[in-house]
C-alpha cells in the first residue's frame, strides 16, 4: 500500500500542537483533531508554569497562533474519531465534526453574540466559577476563535443570529463527516482530573463551599479567571488568610483505584501557593504532603525558595484524613500531626491537589485504534519505545502515556512526531503547500505611517497601566496614523485585525506595545508579512515585563513610563527600513555528540528520517552509562536492547560511527556547521546541518558514608552489576539515598535514584527472599507509575527510614562489618543497623566536558552545569542557537524512556531544519559602505566570526566585505569602524539614537519651562 505524507493527531493540547508544528514544519500535512471547540488543552487554563513562573498563556499563545495559522495544519475541532482502517503508512479515518451552529469561515470571533445571548451557564473553562453564555468561545485567545452554540442550553431565541454582523450563525448546520487519509497517527488526548465528587465524604468537596480544587485555584489566579487574579472564598467572596493545600487527592491511593503518583501536583501546589501569596497580600499558604516530589530540573531550587523566601509552610508526612467545616464561619478544620503531636487548625480555604486520571475518551480511542491501555487506562508503552503503542504507525504523546509535566509532554510530542515522520519520510513534501505571503509592498519614498497596538494582556498590563490613556497619548505622536488597545494582542483574532488595519490604513510601520520581543516579536513580524509588509518594519515596546509587572504599586508612574516606552518605539519605528531576505542552503546531515543510548537513538532516527548521521563517541564503545545497566524496573532486558540497538546502528549505511573521537573545533551556522574531529589522534573535518548534544552524565563518586573504605560499601550501579553476576551474599542491606544530591552545594534532585534503589531492593528480595532491606531517604520520588513499585517494595517488606540534611545517617566500621546509625523520624528513636552491604544512591553529575563543549558550541550551561535549553517549558530539546539541539542526561538527570523520547524529540526538531533545502537567513546583519571603507582591516581583526574580510576591489583598493551567512549582526564591527563605514542593519546609529533622544523627551519639556515651574510640575508627579 502506498504511504501517505500526512499525519493525524488526536488531541490539540500542548502535545498535539507540538507534534503538529514539528510535522508541518518538516514537510507533512497534519490534521489536528480535537473534541473541544478549540485547541489549547489544559495548558490554556493555567495561570503560571513552574519553575520559571512564566505566564502560561504568554508562552503558549505564540504556539497556538502558529498552529492555528500554519498552512500545513488543518484543524478539526469539535470533532471525534468514528472509525479507523488501514495500517502503518496508510490509514483511513472517519471523523465526525459536530455542528457548532456557527460558520468557521464567517465568524470573526468578535463576541457580539455573547453580549446579547440571554442564557448564562456555568463556564467549564473557569471550572464553574464564572458564567458564560450559551453561545461562547472557550477562552479569549482561543484558536480558532470561532464561537460555538451550546445546544444543551440554547433556547433557540435567535437573538445571536439577528445580532451577528458577519451572518455566521447557522442554526440548521448539521454534523459533518470527514474522511482523512494519513500515513501515521499520534494520540495525545491528555488527561482528566480525578473526580473530586468521590472525595465528598472525606474532604467535603461540593459540600463545603470553601473546599476547592487546585485547577479552580489556578483559574482564580488567572487574570482571565473569575476574580481577575485574586483568590477569594467562594462562600463569602472574602480574601482568605490561611489556605491549606492537601496533596495526593486522587493519587497514590489504592482505595480509589489510583495508586500511581500524578507527577506534577507537588510542584503545581508550590507554584500556586507562591503565586497566591503574591496576588493576595497577607495570604499564608500551608502545604500538607507525603513526599515532596520536586524531581525536575531546578525544581528543588524552587521548592527551597518557596519555603525560605516566600515563607510557604510545608508539613510533611501528612496525608490529611478529613476536612470538617465550622458551620458558622464556613472555615475548615484540618487535623494533622506535627512534631509527633496531633494538631487541629482552622483554614479559610482548602485546596485539593487533584490527581490526573486517564482522559475520558481513552477507552473509545483504545477501541477505535486498537491500542492497549495499562491497568489505569493510560496508554501502554514500554521503556524502549516510550511513544509507541502496540499498533505500528500509531504513536502516543503527553499525559495519556503517563501523568507528566509540560516539558516532558513537549519532548514526547516531538518524539512521537519523529516516529510518525520517519514512517512516511519518503512522502515528505508531497502533500504540503508552500508558505506564501503576499508580495511585499514597496514603501520606498513613503512617509512613515505607523500603527500602534497596545495590549492589556488581560490585566497583566491593563491592571496597572492605564492602557486607553496610553493609546490617546500615542495618537498625538508624529507619524502615528492609527492606535488602539486590545485585550490580548497576541490572540489569533487580533492578528487578523492587525493585518486588516495595516491594509486599510496603508500602514508602513507597525508597533505592538505588549510584552517581550524575545518571545513575541516573530509572531507579529509574520503577521505584518501577511499584510505585505517587510518583517523589519515591526517594532515592539515592552510595557509588561519592563513596566506593569515591575512597577505594580505605582500605576501613574507606570502609565507615564509606558507612554515613554511606546514613544521610544515610535521614534525608532519611523527610521526602520525593510531588509532584504537572504537564503542559506542546508546540508542534510546531523552530528550527534555522545554515543550513549540517547545519541544512538538520535542517530538511528536521523537515518530513518533519511539524513546522514555522524555519531561521535569519545570512548572506544557505544552505549555509555547504559553498559552498566542490566534490567529495567519491570525486568526489561536492557542488555538485549543495547545489543540490538548496536547492530541496528552498525547495519545502517546512513550512520557513520566515530569511536575514540572528540570535537576539537566547531564553527559555522545553522545548516552549515563544520566540526573538526580528533579521531584517534587524526584530524577529520565534517560538514553538517545540525548538531545534537547527547553527552550524557555520570555517576557521582561519593566522598561520604565511607565509600571506598569498605569493600561492601558500593554505589547502586556497582551493586547492580554485582547483583546481576550473582555475587551478592548477605542478609541485610541498607541503601542511602540522595548521596551528593539535594545538598547545599548540589541542590538538585538526581531524579532516578529513588526508582533505582526500589528496583535493586525488589531484586534483592526476589533473589534473597529472607533478606532485610532498608532504604534511608529524604523523599521517595517514585513519580508516575513508578509509584506502584514503591508500593510493591513496602509490601515486600522493604523498610523505609526518612532522614533530612540535619539528621544524616552515620556510617562507621564495626569490626569487619558496617554500622549505620540513623534517627527514625516516625518513632523518634535512634536506630542502629549492621548490614552486609551499604548501597549508596549517588547523584547524577553533569559531564566535566560540558563546559568546554558549551564554549565550543556557544551554548549555555545551567547553574548546575547541565546544558541549558532554550526554554524550560516549551523548548526542552533545543538551544537558542539555531540548529543545535540537546537530549538526555546532558539536559538533566532522567530515566531511560525519557532519554529516548528526548533523543527522538531532538531529531524531530532537527528535521524542521533539515527538511528544508533552503532556509531564510537572518537579515539584520552588518554591511559595509564601500565608498567610506578605508580598508584598515579593524573589522576583520575584531570579528569573532570571521565575517568581514578585506578584498581587492577595482584598482587594488582594499575594501572590507562581510559574509552574510557568517555575520551574526552583533554590531561590534560597526562600533570599531572609526569612520562609520559599517552599518548594522536594524540597529543603525540613528535608530538607536532616536530612542535615546525620545527617552529624554520629558527633560526637553521640563527645560523649556522656567525653573520654578518645572520644579512644581515635577514634584506633582513625584508625589503620586
Amino acid at each position, binding site marked *: 500500500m502506498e504511504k501517505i505524507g500526512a499525519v493525524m493527531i488526536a488531541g490539540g493540547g500542548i502535545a498535539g500542537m507540538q507534534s503538529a508544528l514539528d510535522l508541518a514544519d518538516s514537510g507533512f500535512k497534519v490534521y489536528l483533531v480535537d473534541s473541544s471547540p478549540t485547541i489549547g488543552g489544559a495548558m490554556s487554563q493555567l495561570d503560571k508554569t513552574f519553575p520559571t513562573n512564566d505566564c502560561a498563556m504568554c508562552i503558549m499563545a505564540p504556539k497556538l497562533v502558529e498552529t492555528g495559522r500554519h498552512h500545513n495544519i488543518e484543524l478539526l475541532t469539535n470533532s471525534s474519531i468514528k472509525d479507523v482502517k488501514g495500517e502503518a503508512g496508510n490509514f483511513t479515518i472517519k471523523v465526525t465534526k459536530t455542528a457548532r451552529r456557527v460558520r468557521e469561515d464567517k465568524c470573526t470571533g468578535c463576541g457580539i453574540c455573547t453580549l446579547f445571548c440571554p442564557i448564562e451557564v456555568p463556564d467549564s473553562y473557569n471550572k464553574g466559577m464564572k458564567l458564560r453564555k450559551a453561545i461562547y468561545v472557550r477562552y479569549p485567545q482561543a484558536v480558532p476563535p470561532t464561537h460555538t452554540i451550546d445546544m444543551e442550553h440554547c433556547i433557540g431565541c435567535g437573538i445571536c443570529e439577528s445580532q451577528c454582523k458577519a451572518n455566521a450563525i447557522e442554526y440548521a448546520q448539521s454534523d459533518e463527516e470527514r474522511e482523512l487519509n494519513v500515513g501515521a497517527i499520534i494520540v495525545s488526548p491528555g488527561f482528566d482530573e480525578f473526580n473530586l465528587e468521590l472525595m465528598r465524604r472525606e474532604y467535603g468537596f461540593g459540600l463545603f463551599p470553601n473546599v476547592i480544587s487546585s485547577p479552580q485555584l489556578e483559574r482564580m489566579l488567572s487574570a482571565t479567571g473569575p476574580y481577575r487574579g485574586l483568590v477569594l472564598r467562594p462562600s463569602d467572596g472574602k480574601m482568605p488568610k490561611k489556605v491549606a493545600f492537601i496533596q495526593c487527592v486522587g493519587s497514590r491511593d489504592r482505595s480509589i483505584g489510583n495508586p500511581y503518583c500524578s507527577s506534577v501536583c507537588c510542584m503545581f501546589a508550590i507554584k500556586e501557593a507562591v503565586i497566591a501569596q503574591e496576588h493576595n497580600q497577607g495570604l499564608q499558604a500551608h502545604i500538607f504532603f507525603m513526599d515532596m516530589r520536586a524531581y525536575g530540573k531546578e525544581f528543588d531550587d524552587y521548592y527551597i525558595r518557596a519555603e525560605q523566601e516566600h515563607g510557604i509552610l510545608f508539613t510533611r508526612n501528612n496525608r490529611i484524613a478529613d476536612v470538617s467545616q465550622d458551620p458558622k464561619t464556613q472555615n475548615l478544620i484540618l487535623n494533622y500531626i506535627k512534631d509527633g503531636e496531633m494538631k487541629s487548625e482552622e483554614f479559610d480555604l482548602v485546596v485539593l491537589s487533584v490527581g490526573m486520571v486517564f482522559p475520558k475518551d481513552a477507552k473509545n480511542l483504545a477501541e477505535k485504534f486498537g491500542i492497549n491501555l495499562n491497568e489505569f487506562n493510560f496508554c501502554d508503552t514500554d521503556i524502549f519505545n516510550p511513544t509507541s503503542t502496540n499498533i505500528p504507525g500509531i504513536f502516543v504523546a503527553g499525559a495519556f502515556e503517563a501523568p507528566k509535566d509540560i516539558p516532558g509532554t513537549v519532548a514526547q510530542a516531538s518524539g512521537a512526531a519523529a516516529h510518525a515522520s520517519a514512517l512516511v519520510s519518503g512522502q515528505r513534501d508531497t502533500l504540503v503547500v508552500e508558505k506564501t505571503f503576499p508580495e511585499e509592498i514597496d514603501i520606498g519614498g513613503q512617509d512613515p505611517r505607523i500603527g500602534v497596538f497596545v495590549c492589556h494582556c488581560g490585566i497583566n498590563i491593563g491592571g496597572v497601566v492605564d492602557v486607553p490613556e496610553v493609546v490617546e497619548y500615542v495618537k498625538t505622536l508624529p507619524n502615528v496614523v492609527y492606535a488602539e488597545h486590545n485585550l490580548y494582542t497576541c490572540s489569533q483574532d487580533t492578528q487578523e485585525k492587525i493585518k486588516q488595519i495595516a491594509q486599510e490604513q496603508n500602514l508602513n510601520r507597525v508597533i505592538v506595545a505588549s510584552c517581550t*520581543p524575545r518571545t513575541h516579536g516573530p509572531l507579529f513580524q509574520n503577521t505584518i508579512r501577511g499584510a505585505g509588509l517587510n518583517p523589519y518594519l515591526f517594532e515592539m515596546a*515592552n510595557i509588561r515585563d519592563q513596566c506593569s509587572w*515591575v512597577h505594580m504599586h505605582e500605576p501613574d508612574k507606570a502609565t507615564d513610563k509606558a507612554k515613554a516606552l511606546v514613544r521610544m518605539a515610535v521614534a525608532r519605528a519611523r527610521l526602520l527600513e525593510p531588509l532584504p531576505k537572504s537564503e542559506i542552503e542546508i546540508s542534510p546531515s546531523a552530528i550527534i555528540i555522545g554515543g550513549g543510548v540517547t545519541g544512538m537513538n538520535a542517530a538511528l532516527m536521523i537515518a530513518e528520517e533519511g539524513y546522514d548521521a555522524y555519531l561521535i563517541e569519545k570512548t572506544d564503545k557505544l552505549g555509555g552509562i547504559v553498559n552498566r545497566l542490566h534490567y529495567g524496573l519491570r525486568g526489561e532486558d536492557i542488555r538485549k536492547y543495547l545489543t540490538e540497538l548496536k547492530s541496528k546502528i552498525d547495519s545502517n549505511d546512513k550512520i557513520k560511527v566515530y569511536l575514540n573521537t572528540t570535537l576539537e573545533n566547531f564553527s559555522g551556522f545553522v545548516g552549515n556547521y563544520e566540526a573538526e574531529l580528533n579521531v584517534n589522534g587524526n584530524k577529520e573535518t565534517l560538514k553538517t546541518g545540525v548538531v545534537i548534544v547527547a553527552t550524557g552524565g555520570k555517576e557521582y563518586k561519593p566522598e561520604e558514608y565511607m565509600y571506598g573504605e569498605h569493600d561492601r560499601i558500593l554505589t547502586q550501579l556497582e551493586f547492580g552489576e554485582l547483583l546481576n553476576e550473582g555475587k551478592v551474599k548477605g542478609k541485610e542491606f541498607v541503601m542511602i539515598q540522595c548521596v551528593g544530591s539535594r545538598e547545599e552545594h548540589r541542590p538538585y534532585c538526581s531524579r532516578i535514584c529513588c526508582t533505582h534503589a526500589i528496583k535493586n531492593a525488589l531484586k534483592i528480595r526476589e533473589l534473597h527472599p529472607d533478606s532485610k532491606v532498608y532504604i534511608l531517604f529524604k523523599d521517595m520520588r517514585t513519580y508516575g507509575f513508578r509509584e506502584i513499585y514503591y508500593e510493591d517494595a513496602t509490601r515486600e517488606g522493604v523498610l523505609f527510614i526518612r532522614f533530612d540534611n540535619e539528621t544524616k545517617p552515620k556510617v562507621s566500621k564495626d569490626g569487619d562489618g558496617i554500622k549505620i546509625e540513623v534517627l527514625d523520624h516516625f518513632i523518634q528513636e535512634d536506630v542502629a543497623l549492621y548490614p552486609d552491604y551499604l548501597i549508596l544512591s549517588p547523584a547524577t553529575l553533569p559531564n566535566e566536558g560540558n563546559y568546554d563543549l558549551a564554549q565550543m558550541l556557544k551554548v549555555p550551561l545551567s547553574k548546575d552545569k547541565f546544558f541549558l535549553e532554550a526554554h524550560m517549558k516549551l523548548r526542552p530539546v533545543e538551544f537558542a542557537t539555531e540548529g543545535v539541539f540537546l537530549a538526555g542526561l546532558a539536559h538533566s538527570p532522567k530515566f531511560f524512556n525519557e532519554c529516548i523520547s528526548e533523543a527522538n524529540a531532538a531529531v524531530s526538531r532537527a528535521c524542521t531544519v533539515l527538511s528544508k533545502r533552503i532556509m531564510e537567513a537572518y537579515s539584520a546583519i552588518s554591511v559595509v559602505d564601500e565608498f567610506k571603507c578605508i580598508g584598515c582591516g579593524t573589522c576583520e581583526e575584531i570579528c569573532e566570526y570571521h565575517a568581514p574580510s578585506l578584498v581587492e576591489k577595482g584598482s587594488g583598493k582594499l575594501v572590507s566585505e562581510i559574509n552574510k551567512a557568517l555575520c551574526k549582526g*552583533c554590531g561590534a564591527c560597526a562600533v570599531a569602524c572609526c569612520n562609520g563605514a559599517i552599518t*548594522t542593519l536594524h540597529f543603525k546609529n540613528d535608530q538607536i539614537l532616536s530612542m535615546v533622544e525620545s527617552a529624554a523627551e520629558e527633560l*526637553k519639556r521640563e527645560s523649556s519651562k522656567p525653573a520654578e515651574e518645572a520644579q512644581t510640575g515635577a514634584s506633582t508627579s513625584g508625589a503620586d
Partner: protein
Amino acid sequence: MAGEASTKPPADSEHHEAQTPPPGEPINLIAFCCNWCSYAGADLAGVSRLQYPPNVKIIRVMCTGRIEPEFLLHAFELGIDGVLVCGCHIGDCHYISGNEKAEVRINTLKKLMDMIGIDSRRLRLEWVSASEGTRFAETVKDFKEQIEKLGKNKIYIAQS
C-alpha cells in the same frame, strides 16, 4: 573580576555636583541591555514581579559590543541622569567577546567624561545574565540611589 573595575566610582572626585537632589525632580535613567542576557534578565525581573524604580527605560541592542560611546555621551548631553549598560557576564557573551569590547570602550568614555565634567559614576556597566532578574532589579535600585546622591545631571544641550 574584570567587570568590577569599571563599575567602581573614580577614586578622586573633584566634581562639584550637588550632593542632594532638589526634592521631587525625578531621576531619568536609561539602560542599554543586550538581547541575550540582560534583556532576558530584565524580562525575568518582570516575570518574577521584582519591583524596581520606574525611572529607567530600557533600550535593547543585540550586544553591548554594538554600543557606540556616542550613544551614551549623547544621552548625557540630553540631560539623562544616568546610563546603565548591561551585558552578559564575561565569558557568556552570545557573540563571544562583545562585552569585553564594551568594557574597554566604556572605560575610555568614563575617563573622557571625567575630563569633560560629567561624573563618570553616572555611567555604569553591569553584567546581568538571563537568570538574574533579581540582579537586574537590584542594580536599577542601587543605581537610582547612587544617581540621586549625585543629583541631577545639569548638562542639558537643546538640540536644534
